[in-house]
Structure formats: C-alpha cells, structure tokens
C-alpha cells in the first residue's frame, strides 16, 4: 500500500498532493467564509494573489540569495526548474502580500485568518502526504512494529504522524460548534500545529541542530507556540474589552 502510494506520487508527482490539498482546502474555506464576514470572492482573490506571491516570491528570494550565480546565467531566473525556489522567502512574501492586499481591501486581519484556517489546515495534511510520497522529513530508525522501510532502514513513519496530527487538528477545528471570537480559531490552529511539530520532530532523522545539540525545528516550533499563546491571550483581552 505504502509502496504503491510512493510509486504513484514519487517526485516530481508529489506536488500533485500539494495542489490537491490547496484546492480542497480552499473549497472548504469558501463554505465557511461568510461565517467570518468574508465573501467567497474576497477569499478566492486573497488566496489566488497569495499563491501567486508565494510562487514569484520563492523564485525571487532564491535568485537574490544566489545573485552571483544568476548574474552569470540570467536566463535561469525564468527557467522551469521548480528547484529554484526558497520556501521560507516564498512564505514571507506571500504573507506580506496578503497583509497589504487585505488592508487595501479593508478586510479584517483576524476574520480573514479565521476564514483561511481550513485552507491552512488541509494544506498541512497535503504537506505531510507529499513528505511521505517523496520520502523527505523521514524518521529516526526504530524497532517499533509500525516502523516503515525507508532509505535502507526501518524508520518512524514521521510523515504519517505529521499527516494524522494535521488531520486531527483540522477535525477539531472544523467540527467545533462554538463560533469563537475573531482570531481565536486561527491562533488555536497555529498553537496546535506548532505543538504537534514540537512533539513529532523529536522522531525525525533529518534534523539540523543549533547550539550543538538542540533540534532547530523543535526550537522554532516552541517559539511559534509561545507566540501563539501570547497572541491568543492578547486577542482574548482585546475582544473582552471590545465586548
């Protein structure tokens, strides 16, 4: 089953999973958009322009980081290689662009983020599945019975842990009956996602370390978790005062 899945979506076809996740996520987000005071069109526009900014920003960020290389081969800037891409730069550019777009269209930041939460949640499920297909974000070696054979060893199926955690987070947020105060849904999603990454990353076998021993991704997840808690509390206070 796993081999069939990995053969079917082996790179570069693993990108199909991301595109499918983005499509499903956006469809689900559209269904609930009006609950947060955002029209379907506005949600579609902000997502479309955000994705466009993500693609262009990722390429530009990569080019700027390797500017001497691209000065020697300028045609490479518009080449079709998807590997000429910086995901961190892409995310930063997309977020800035979406923020500016939202402000210009007078969209409430927190309402927009809440409306986009199902999109983000499904995207994380897609990321987990694409990691599984590509064999990236692989786990440490294990003797546990649910270990998977990957890269010449039996390993923790961290990509499956990641997918299940994202699925659980999506379920928790999607099926909750209460309509929380603006921003709480998104910040809860951010906190839960950061917490799940903080936990699961410990089983990953491809981690980079900082300060000689601390897992870099865990430290980043902890910082995001702390920031989410701070923002949550800030939102609780703000909405209480406003109410």
């Amino acid at each position, binding site marked *: 089953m796993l081999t069939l899945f990995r053969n079917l979506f*082996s790179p570069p076809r693993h990108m199909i999973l991301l595109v499918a996740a983005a499509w499903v996520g956006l469809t689900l987000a559209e269904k609930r958009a009006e609950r947060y005071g955002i029209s379907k069109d506005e949600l579609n526009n902000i997502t479309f322009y955000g994705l466009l900014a993500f693609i262009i920003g990722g390429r530009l960020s990569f080019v700027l980081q390797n500017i001497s*290389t691209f000065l020697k081969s300028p045609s490479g*800037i518009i*080449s079709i290689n998807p590997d*000429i891409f910086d995901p961190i730069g892409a995310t930063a550019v997309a977020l800035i662009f979406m923020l500016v777009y939202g402000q210009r269209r007078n969209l409430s930041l927190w309402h927009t983020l809440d409306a986009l939460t199902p999109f983000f949640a499904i995207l994380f499920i897609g990321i987990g599945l694409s990691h599984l297909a590509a064999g990236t974000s692989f786990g440490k070696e294990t003797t546990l019975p649910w270990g998977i054979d990957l890269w*010449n060893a039996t390993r923790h199926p961290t990509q499956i842990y990641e997918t299940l955690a994202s699925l659980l987070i999506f379920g928790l947020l999607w099926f909750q009956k209460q309509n929380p105060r603006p921003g709480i849904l998104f910040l809860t999603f951010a906190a839960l996602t950061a917490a799940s990454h*903080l936990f699961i990353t410990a089983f990953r076998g491809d981690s980079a370390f900082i300060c000689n021993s*601390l897992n870099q991704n865990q430290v980043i997840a*902890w910082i995001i*978790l702390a920031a989410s808690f701070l923002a949550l509390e800030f939102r609780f206070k703000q909405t209480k005062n406003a109410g």
Partner: protein
Amino acid sequence: MTQSQRITLYILVLIAGAAWIFLNAAPAGAPAVVNTSAPQAGFTAPDFTLKTPQGETYTLSELKGNAVLVNLWATWCPPCRAEMPAIQKMYDEYKDQGFVVLAVNSTVQDSAIEIPTFIAEYSLNFPILLDELGDVTRMYQVRSLPSSYFINRLGIITEVVIGGPMSEALLRTRIEEALK
C-alpha cells in the same frame, strides 16, 4: 476557562515543550550526518563501480575529496538530452576546482548502440558509465529520468534533483554548495 487557568495552561505546555526539546537534544559529539547510505539528501551516497563504453572503470567512493554529480539518464529521454549541454558547460567550468560528473546511462532501459552517437552529438568529455544490469538504477531508487545527485567532498548527498532539464543556474548553485 478563566484567564488565570489559561495562563497556567500556557506555562505548563511551554515548560513541557522545553523539557521535550532538552530530552531530545543530541548527545555531544553525535555525528552531524547520517552514516547509512541512501539516495537521499543528508545520507552517504550509495557506492558503485561501473565501466565506460571504452572499458575504463569508475568507483564513486574513490572520488571522495571531489564534488560529484551522479546524473542518471537515457538517450530516449528528452529532458536528459536537453540538460546535457549545461552539464558539459558546468563540468568545463568547475572541473579544476574538483568537480566530477558521472553520467550513468540507465542502459538496462536504453540501447547501448545509441550512446556513442549521443556522446558525439553533445561533445561530452566527462565519464559516461553504463548501468547494464540496472544495479545503480535500482540502488538509487530511480523512478524518473533524469535523476541527479549532488555529492559533496565527504561523499554525502547534498541535493537530489528529480526530473529536468536542469538549468545552468540551478547546476551552478548545487555545484557550488557541493564544492564548499
């Protein structure tokens, strides 16, 4: 939930998170790279020995100290053909800095007769190796052609590029990273 209950919960979760990070900290002196060999970034590149059409033998592990591009290709594969001129250009430019190309023809799924014409057509002067039994194709778990593996001077795969054609700019960034 009251504010004080929430803050207590945040603090407890953050303490537990920090404890989890320290519990999983790598022991001092732990190797920075995975010692197992596998066709994936971060692993030691799986070793192989193959011959050129002229009968010259190349062993990957004997090239330690050089940055190596292992490029798996076939004559019938259009992106493989398209990226060959760029690979040749980069080989000419970086070979003096210790850059080696091992262009492994997946002969098991290709016609060996076509190879000399292919080499002449693109004026290739880096080693072309024949994977007649498909051992390297299987060892590198190749599912798409071309598949390229950039290996640093320590024999660790720094980057895997599946599909193509690779542009000069992409080759340059990956080669320079492998040469570091």
